[in-house]
């Protein structure tokens, strides 16, 4: 195998079909490129064919009433500035996109790329997980829908086959009295997350918690749901003590590593703090405060 990133051919398909044909033809030796902010940093030497998918019509945000549909080539800039995400539970899409990184990278990086590169510290997967998002994946063989929880297979690994493309995220309409929040801890707001967390809480009209979802990034090989903590909150009236308990439980559900950015102990402790903050904020928002 070569040592350097020296793809021999570059394609710029205009249609999805063309792109899928190229992926099917070249298999593992081909790699789709969207924003390029991950691929051209990593420069994988095994790539022989670059399939530039930026011209495909996958940069859109639509709301058909039942589902919010976001094309996988939407940039963080489009998400951040979309008028559809000014209020309600969808607000965390814009908020997390705002915190994603520096202005230049937000103009380039796509949400599909952020998810498909499957970096454990990525900001968007926890957000999509609490919003119960599904990924629409297509290939010449047809299409399939995969939930965000089933999508990640490990560090930089997903269930995506080499002939498939992730084309769309589908987010079901959140029920009334739903609030969501995202929090990222990094050295600076534009840096990679040391830990990130997202939560979504739905209340019944009597104030009891109907549903709770908590997801964390950078604390395990893949983004994770804190299901034990979620269970503690469901069907209960949430107060400070319960938030505290759920945060502790969520922290115990993490399996962080120590690396150059921070230690495992620190990540575990901060998971607790972040979950507490996103739960408090989600709760407030669910109550309409």
């Amino acid at each position, binding site marked *: 195998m070569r040592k350097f990133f020296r793809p021999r051919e570059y394609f710029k398909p205009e249609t999805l079909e063309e792109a899928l044909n190229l992926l099917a033809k070249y298999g593992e030796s081909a790699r789709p490129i969207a924003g390029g902010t991950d691929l051209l940093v990593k420069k994988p030497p095994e790539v022989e064919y670059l399939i*530039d998918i930026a011209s495909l019509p996958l940069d859109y945000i639509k709301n058909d009433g039942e589902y919010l549909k976001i094309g996988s080539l939407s940039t963080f800039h489009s998400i951040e500035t979309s008028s559809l995400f000014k209020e309600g539970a969808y607000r965390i899409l814009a908020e997390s996109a705002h915190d994603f990184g520096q202005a230049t990278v937000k103009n380039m990086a796509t949400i599909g790329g952020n998810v498909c590169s499957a970096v454990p510290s990525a900001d968007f997967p926890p957000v999509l997980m609490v919003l119960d998002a599904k990924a629409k994946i297509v290939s010449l063989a047809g299409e399939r829908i995969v939930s965000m929880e089933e999508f990640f297979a490990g560090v930089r690994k997903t269930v995506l086959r080499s002939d498939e493309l992730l084309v769309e995220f589908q987010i079901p309409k959140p029920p009334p009295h739903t609030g969501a929040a995202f929090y990222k801890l990094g050295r600076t707001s*534009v840096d990679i997350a040391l830990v990130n967390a997202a939560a979504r809480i739905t209340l019944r009209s009597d104030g009891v918690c109907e549903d709770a979802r908590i997801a964390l990034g950078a604390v395990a090989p893949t983004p994770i749901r804190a299901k034990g903590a979620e269970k503690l909150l469901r069907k209960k009236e949430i107060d400070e003590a319960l938030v505290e308990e759920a945060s502790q439980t969520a922290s115990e559900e993490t399996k962080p590593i120590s690396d150059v950015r921070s230690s495992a102990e620190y990540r575990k402790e901060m998971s607790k703090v972040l979950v507490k903050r996103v739960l408090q904020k989600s709760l407030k928002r669910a109550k309409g405060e």
Partner: protein
Amino acid sequence: MIKLNVNGEIHEVRVKPYWTLLRVLRNELGLTGAKLGCGRGECGACTVLMDGKPILSCLTLAARAEGKKIVTIEGLAEGLKLHPLQEAFIKNGAIQCGFCTSGMILSAKALLDRNLNPTEEEVREALSGNLCRCTGYVKPVKAVLEAAEIMRKGGSR
């Protein structure tokens, strides 16, 4: 062979599939205003405008830029007449070594093109991808705010 529209001029360039826009600008077209700093999207020294938006030319394939309008720092002045942002950077001493300057000015231009009345916070955010290792950001931010004021009052562009 690709055609690139850089500062309003069309250039035909023979490129390899993995050549970045930065490499083509600097090595093939001789436009050395955009700098190679980190080469991995951290520093912003390679910032250019693509269809009006600041992007990192070190992480953009040259072939991707075909059909887009690229603006580099060389495209800002009209003859000997500098852009108000360039004037303001000089006047405010917002340049030391100059390595980050072209990127900073282009990020600032993209901001002022859509918002001529930015807050300091908005300026800082627009410059968030342009790292300065000499001195800091106080003077560049001041320069951008001053250029905005001059442009609001009808100073050229």
